């Protein structure tokens, strides 16, 4: 127990500090975790017995990452990107692999080693690139979309690569039986093939048919931790099943992710798995860092440097001509080529597997890890270089207009009677809002109508984040719960200062709280419909419909003006009944309207009757008319 506490303390402390520093320096969290590993590695003697357990544990991070990547894969998007995905992505991976492979063989490595080096170099860092593109708002630009397509292809390409490593290994070395014989290995060939196929079919079928009723039942329990446990169970169970039939757990998790991508529980699942994935991946990168031998860096710093530069040169050398081939314009092409010029976290996975299977020596792995890490460290520098190139190209008259993001998105939080009407109007006008609601049955019903709706408590910041709050143009806060609504408005305003917030208020007081929290437009939920009833009543009493309409408009104007006047008086802390300013102001608001009620309607009538006075010729014109008559 003491040992575990000490391990946890050292790892977590190093992780927290190194990641904070690394993010501050703009290097991203991956570099931070590796650095933390380098620091704690010698202290904890990672090569000792404790680390193997840690390693296995941390590999779940990879499984979860692939699960989440699978979830992000929207078949429609893949279809839309198919040209870039297969053409650009495929050529990029194959050409890089070939270039590095040939280069490696020429340098005297075995072909297996060269091929695996090629795989490592061909894969860029999804985590770093996507995060940077998103931070810079370039994800929706031409270059950003091309980069995304290539990253997506690389994520898919990992799966066959992982599958090929054992084959490469079996050529070079005697099969590594460290993992022991499985029950599976004792079966004849046809049976094992059938069993493998059966396992895959089971994952797909269970994901499609079984997951919804199960998750819905759990969601209706309303116990969040049980839902989290179920989400983790899915991933762990798939990993266990896949290992049992001799397939890669990552592949199984990926498949399950794809199957669940269209589920209404997608966002909830993502949110529950995300922190575990983050921590375990962090652990994975730290174990990699811990295995780096600093003496190797001191000894071979020149090799590391040359390897890094060679790797980046090869990558840019492949990416830039491809970008031109696929007609990306100058700025987009540079963003694409420089952004993807590093090797990524999958490289670490491949390297450690290669080491396990004895394809690489310890020294090769250490140098490669250092080279990849150095490449990651240099990535922010490459983005700065990209900015320079853009300004250079701009000054030469190239326009950047097409490289700006496209039109924005709407989030509708809460899909009761209020949110549904908002949603219908948006849909009728060609917008596809992301809809959030915490009642699984409501979400389920809506999905039957083809509305993109997701299960989850809209009050949870992480759910709002994954619904795209940071990039959304508008959020409609349409939930019943008054306090929650205020929380959402507050969070949305902080997370995205430029977003427009339309909020549903319960009453006047709630109106002020929402206004205080930063809502742009506030709609009192019953105001409009009550007024409609008043309009119909006045019409029934015989007032001319257009006259009623004018009076209605003046009433709204006066009421809103009063509300606005009162807003600054509301401090949100003092109860209204104890706030003398508020009480005085409140009495003031209704004066015009109240007068109207008491029969003293002059002010109100004056407002209503403005305009529509017939032109009357003034004295001068009257005079002229008289003169001409004479």
């Amino acid at each position, binding site marked *: 127990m003491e040992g575990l506490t000490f391990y946890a303390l050292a790892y977590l402390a190093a992780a927290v500090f190194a990641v904070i520093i690394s993010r501050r320096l703009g290097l991203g969290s991956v570099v931070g975790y590796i650095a933390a590993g380098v620091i704690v590695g010698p202290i904890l003697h990672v090569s000792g017995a404790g680390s193997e357990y840690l390693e296995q544990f941390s590999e779940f991070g990879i499984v979860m990452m692939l699960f989440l990547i699978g979830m992000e894969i929207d078949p429609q998007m893949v279809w839309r990107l198919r040209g870039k995905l297969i053409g650009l992505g495929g050529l990029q991976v194959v050409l890089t692999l070939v270039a590095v492979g040939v280069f490696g063989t020429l340098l005297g490595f075995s072909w297996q080693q060269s091929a695996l080096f090629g795989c490592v170099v061909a894969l860029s860092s999804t985590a770093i690139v996507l995060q940077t593109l998103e931070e810079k708002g370039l994800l929706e630009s031409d270059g950003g979309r091309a980069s995304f397509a290539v990253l997506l292809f690389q994520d898919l390409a990992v799966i066959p690569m992982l599958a090929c490593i054992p084959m490469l290994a079996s050529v070079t070395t005697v099969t590594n039986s460290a993992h022991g014989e499985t029950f599976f290995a004792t079966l004849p060939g046809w049976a094992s093939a059938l069993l493998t196929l059966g396992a895959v079919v089971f994952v797909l079928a269970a994901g499609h048919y079984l997951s919804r009723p199960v998750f819905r039942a759990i969601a209706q329990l309303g116990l969040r931790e049980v839902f989290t446990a179920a989400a983790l169970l899915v991933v762990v169970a798939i990993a266990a099943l896949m290992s049992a039939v001799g397939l890669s757990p990552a592949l199984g998790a990926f498949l399950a992710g794809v199957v669940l991508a269209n589920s209404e529980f997608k966002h909830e699942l993502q949110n529950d798995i995300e922190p575990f994935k983050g921590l375990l991946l962090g652990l994975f990168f730290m174990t990699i860092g811990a295995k780096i031998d600093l003496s190797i860096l001191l000894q071979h710093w020149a090799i590391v440097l040359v390897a890094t530069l060679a790797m980046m040169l090869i990558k840019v050398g492949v990416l830039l001509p491809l970008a031109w081939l696929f007609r990306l314009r100058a700025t987009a092409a540079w963003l694409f080529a420089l952004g993807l010029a590093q090797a990524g976290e999958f490289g670490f996975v491949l390297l450690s597997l290669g080491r396990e299977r004895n394809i690489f020596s310890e020294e090769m792995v250490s140098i490669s890890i250092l080279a990849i890490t150095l490449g990651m460290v240099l990535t922010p520098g490459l983005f700065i270089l990209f900015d320079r190139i853009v300004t250079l190209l701009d000054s030469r008259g190239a326009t950047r207009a097409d490289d700006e993001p496209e039109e924005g998105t709407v989030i509708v939080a809460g899909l009761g009677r209020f949110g549904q009407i908002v949603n219908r109007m948006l849909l009728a006008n060609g917008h596809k809002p992301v809809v959030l609601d915490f009642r699984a049955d409501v979400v389920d019903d809506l999905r039957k109508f083809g509305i993109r709706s997701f299960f989850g408590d809209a009050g949870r910041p992480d759910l709002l984040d994954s619904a795209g709050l940071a990039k959304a143009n508008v959020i409609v806060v349409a939930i019943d719960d008054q306090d929650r609504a205020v929380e959402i408005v507050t969070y949305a305003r902080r997370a995205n200062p430029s977003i427009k917030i339309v909020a549903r208020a319960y009453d006047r007081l709630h109106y002020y709280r929402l206004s205080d929290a930063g809502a742009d437009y506030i709609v009192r939920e019953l105001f409009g419909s009550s007024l409609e009833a008043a309009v119909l009543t006045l019409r029934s009493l015989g007032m001319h419909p257009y006259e009623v309409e004018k009076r209605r*408009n003046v009433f709204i*104007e006066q009421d809103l003006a009063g509300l606005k006047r009162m807003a600054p008086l509301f401090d949100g802390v003092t109860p209204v009944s104890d706030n003398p300013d508020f009480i005085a102001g409140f009495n003031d608001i209704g004066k015009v309207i109240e007068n109207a009620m008491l029969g003293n309607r002059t002010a109100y009538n004056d407002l209503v009757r*403005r*305009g*529509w*006075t017939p*032109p*009357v*010729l*003034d*004295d001068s*014109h009257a005079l002229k008319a008289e003169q001409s008559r004479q």
Partner: protein
Amino acid sequence: MRVLVLFAHPAQRKSSINRAMADAARRVGGLTFVDLYEEYPRFQINIDREQERLLDHDVIVFQFPIYWYSTPSLLKEWQDLVLEYGFAYGPQGKLLAGKFALICVTTGGRESDYSATGGNNYPLRQFLLPLQQTATLCGMKFLPPFVLHAANHIGTPEAQRHIASYGALLRAITANQLDLDEALTRDSIFPADLPIMAEH
């Protein structure tokens, strides 16, 4: 000159010539541009705000497409509500007197359609008489209109020239480079022969 452009167009499509003209006007620095349909989508015109705007400017530009020989309905509503007795006319107040009114319109018909022998039977100026008389009653000086006929396609060279010279016209008025009193004597304001004042 302090210029106020009141733009009224209920169907602003991307290809609309009037929208391109409006964009040209927006780009002119130092004038006030108001898209009436944007500001009052529900026809609830804020009379006080509109009257204040009129008082704050010397040249009032009305930009709109001709609909049924008249203005789009919101601009008519604007006239009905804003040009109040006691503000725009009448013995107690004639606060707009001395200001200039400039009508900038587009028509679907060709220039030849607006003649005794054309399909519309009368010249365009006749259809603008209600506006002219409204301005005159308020004591405003009614400038000759700035017109684009046959405004059906934004791609034509005439349309493009008109859009460009609209911006130039507004810029010249804003910068006091246009002799407006001289312009009053003309039949229409053509971009080619704008009465530009000599540099001081």
